[in-house]
């Protein structure tokens, strides 16, 4: 590749011309992939290092990072789903019309006559749901493996920002089909945005400080959901939020590299590395392929990660091993999405009708737990408790600074037991609060004149927060470990989210009444 092409006086310019033309394919390939064939470690490292898309990876990865039951490939699934959503989203943008007159009809045309329209639309819908699930599970994985420590604190916060963007993307996209489901779910979301009114009304401050109405108007561009809201949501969903998410994703991936790569324990039992690709070339020595020298580019901050088990045997090339595992994770999630898309059509109900509410009007499933809390107090459930949750999550790496077992699920057997006990505690608390509210109601049923402020402060949502905090502090005391307190609190939050989401989706029917099963809803 480095041979110089001397223009031999013996070769005329014309024949050189034809020779260059003939050699075009291999010259072109060589100019694109300057590292040549990927048969040497150096070539592989250079391939990763010199490619703008690949160089987010390190040239070599530790074998431990490739264990599927360590990360479950969840981060890759998140990014992979995002890529799938972008591609399908771009395709949908060609035919979708963001106008109240045409949106619904363009959806029908997409489903019926646009070639592969049904496939693309279903993939987009199920991909979106799967991405929300993947993001949740990825957050849980990072938490339970203590991968927010040792310099990774800020990346955890960036991850939370990405999480919020994912939910925002899903919420804005939900409105676009402009059917009954979309319209009324967005109505609920908009009214949650307006819920500070509950607080300002209770404090009689609304006349000076009506932030609720301001937020709702900012969101909808009007006082009700119409063309303004649709074009606004379309812009957010297709342009602004994807851009923001991509930017923050770049930071997120960059920080992974700079904070020391994928987390793993300091000391790794070699049994854990069985079955993983091996560095077969570690024993071999081979002549350097060239005399290229390297300049120092940067010092990476942070404690030098101790490498008892980081001997060269345990570092394998990114190409092919890490890329293979990433590809597996991506194909796996793509397969699941396509199978779901084949068997289940994305819902499209009748056209949006502002005078005919859905009953029950339900937010998208990942907001249903929130909607259950909102049914107790609009402000607390819609804004108060989610803010507490997000702030609490963001604080975790800054409060839990113990040098614990990074890279170990649940820390140890004790931690696993604690997780299970916390899950039980959260389940019992949630079921108890739900049973009380379903059977006996809450304050306004018993004391009709009670001030709303009391209900805002004392309602099943806030009581659960209190119970979980008490449990967490109790854990800190018993185990004398902040990490264990964090495990307790996070598990309570996670399990209660799942339970409330399940409860609101299955057991809440028309007028938000309790029903044992959807088939028992009254024929309306």
């Amino acid at each position, binding site marked *: 590749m480095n041979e110089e092409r001397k223009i031999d006086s013996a070769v005329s310019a014309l024949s050189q011309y034809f020779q260059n033309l003939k050699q075009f394919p291999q010259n072109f390939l060589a100019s694109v992939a300057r590292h040549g064939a990927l048969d040497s470690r150096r070539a592989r490292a250079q391939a990763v290092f010199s490619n703008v898309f690949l160089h987010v990876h390190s040239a070599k990865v530790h074998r431990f990072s490739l264990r599927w039951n360590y990360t479950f490939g969840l981060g890759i699934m998140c990014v992979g789903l995002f890529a799938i959503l972008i591609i399908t989203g771009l395709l949908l943008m060609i035919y979708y019309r963001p106008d109240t007159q045409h949106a619904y*009809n363009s959806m029908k045309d997409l489903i*019926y*006559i646009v070639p*592969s329209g049904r*496939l693309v639309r279903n993939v987009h819908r199920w991909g979106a749901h799967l991405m929300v699930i993947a993001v949740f599970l990825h957050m849980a994985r990072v938490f339970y493996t203590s991968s927010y420590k040792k310099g990774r604190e800020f990346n955890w916060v960036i991850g939370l920002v990405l999480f919020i963007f994912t939910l925002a993307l899903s919420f804005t996209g939900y409105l676009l089909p402009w059917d009954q489901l979309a319209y009324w779910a967005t109505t609920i979301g908009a009214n949650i945005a307006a819920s500070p009114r509950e607080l300002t009304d209770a404090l009689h401050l609304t006349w000076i400080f009506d932030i609720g109405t301001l937020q709702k108007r900012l969101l909808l561009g009007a006082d009700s959901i119409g063309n303004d809201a649709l074009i606004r949501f379309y812009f957010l969903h297709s342009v602004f939020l994807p851009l923001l998410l991509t930017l923050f994703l770049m930071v997120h991936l960059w920080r992974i590299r700079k904070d020391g790569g994928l987390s793993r324990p300091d000391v790794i039992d070699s049994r854990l590395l069985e079955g993983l690709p091996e560095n077969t070339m570690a024993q071999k020595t081979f002549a350097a392929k060239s005399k290229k020298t390297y300049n120092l580019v940067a010092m990476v901050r942070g404690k030098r990660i101790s490498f008892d088990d980081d001997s060269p045997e345990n570092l394998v090339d990114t190409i092919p091993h890490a890329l293979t595992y990433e590809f*597996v994770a991506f*194909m*796996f999630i793509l397969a699941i999405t*396509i199978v779901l898309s084949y068997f289940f059509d994305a819902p*499209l109900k009748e056209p949006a009708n502002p005078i005919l509410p859905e009953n029950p009007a339900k937010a998208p499933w990942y907001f249903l737990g929130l909607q259950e809390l909102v049914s107790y107090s609009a402000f607390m459930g819609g804004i108060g408790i989610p803010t507490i949750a997000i702030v609490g999550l963001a604080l975790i790496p800054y409060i839990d600074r113990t040098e614990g077992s990074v890279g170990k699920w649940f820390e140890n057997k004790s931690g696993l037991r604690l997780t299970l006990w916390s899950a039980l505690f959260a389940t019992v608390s949630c079921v108890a609060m739900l049973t009380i509210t379903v059977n006996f109601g809450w304050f306004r049923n018993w004391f009709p004149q009670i001030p709303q402020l009391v209900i805002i402060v004392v309602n099943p949502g806030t009581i659960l927060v209190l119970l979980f905090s008490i449990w967490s502090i109790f854990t800190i005391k018993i185990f004398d470990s902040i990490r264990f307190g964090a495990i307790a609190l996070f598990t309570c939050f996670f399990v209660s989210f799942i339970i409330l989401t399940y409860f609101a989706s299955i057991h809440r029917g028309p007028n938000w009444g309790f029903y044992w099963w959807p088939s028992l809803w009254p024929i309306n």
Partner: protein
Amino acid sequence: MKILLYISSIVVFLFTGLFYFQENIFAEWRGHQLAYLRQLKQINQDSEHQEEENLSIKLQQIYLPEMNRIDRCVSCHVTIEDPRFADKKNPLKTHPGNYLEKHDPEKFGCTICHDGQGRAIVWDDVRADSKEKFWEKPIIKKPFLEANCFRCHVKPLSETPTYNRGKYLFETSGCLGCHKRDGRGGYLAAELRGLGDASVHQKYPTNSLDPKLLPKFNYNRNLAYIYESVRFPKAQPEDSVMFDFKFSHDDALALTVYLKSLSIKQPGIEKLPQEPEKPLTLLARGKKTFQLFCSACHGENGKGGVKNRNYQKDVMPTLNLIAEKMFLYEKEDADAVIEAINEFGDLNLTDPEPDIPGFNRVLAQFTAVRDIILNGNSAAKKDPEGPAPFNMPSWRKSIPRKDVTSTIAFMISLYDFEE
């Protein structure tokens, strides 16, 4: 790991392939168009003419921007205008009758008459007649299909006998005594305009409670409900105050068809111009008004006998004895009064007054009756603790003054002077 990769890749490949096959090879409409080509070949096998060579298999549609509709029915129903297919089975059947000669499919499309989901290309979605299909206008079959003619047509048609019967029954049973139609009528019951647009998913009206009814209506719950509320008013809700008119099945069916036609204006459709009606005589006008608004409570031709709950006098007033109440004891006097109303519109505006004995008394009674009709009247309770009886509504807003007086004239004419 590698196994997972192979399996995932095969699954992705397989299902994408399935999608491809479903769309490009096994699509319903393709099968129908292929069958059409085969049948064409059979028809043409004797002749030299090879018309199917010029036909390709592709989606067809009728684009109707003013109505905001796209009808893709013609992708499967390729032969609606080809008379050679008159004896074949749907979808390759010629359109029956000569409707397409007067209603060019390219201008009207199909769904404007037949309803259904025009943009769909799968029969189940087009039909949209189950709870899982969220289309508000499922395909509608005869005799209910007749209702849709009246999105444009105004005059009764010979092709719509059931509708015509239904309209006649509606306008002679006094339905507007309680219901409103286009803003005119009583106050006790729902406005009926828009009833034809109700659907399973608009959740109005609700389902019929009698599961045996549904199959008779092609499982269209709304048609079943309209029929049920006409034929069995007390079925739901149980405390409904609607009278049981004891309609026969056929009459109830006809009324259902008529009520289905009471739908809100569709975009891009203009009703045909209303031809000027031959002016009716005074008594004919009065009879028409009476049958439309009054006969449900006051009985056919005012004969009375209709119960009024918790009313002091138990039954609603009879109206065929008005002449006597108005001190008109001779037929000539009654006829003179009717003549005066015909000429001057209102007995208070006569100039000169009719020459009948005690005209002032007659005038006073006439005015009293007229004012009851215009302003309404509350019914006295029999049991003060009981429910309120039905009151006489005020008809000022619903019935033009001319029709009020003609109704009074009609009621006067009902009196049997012979006995």
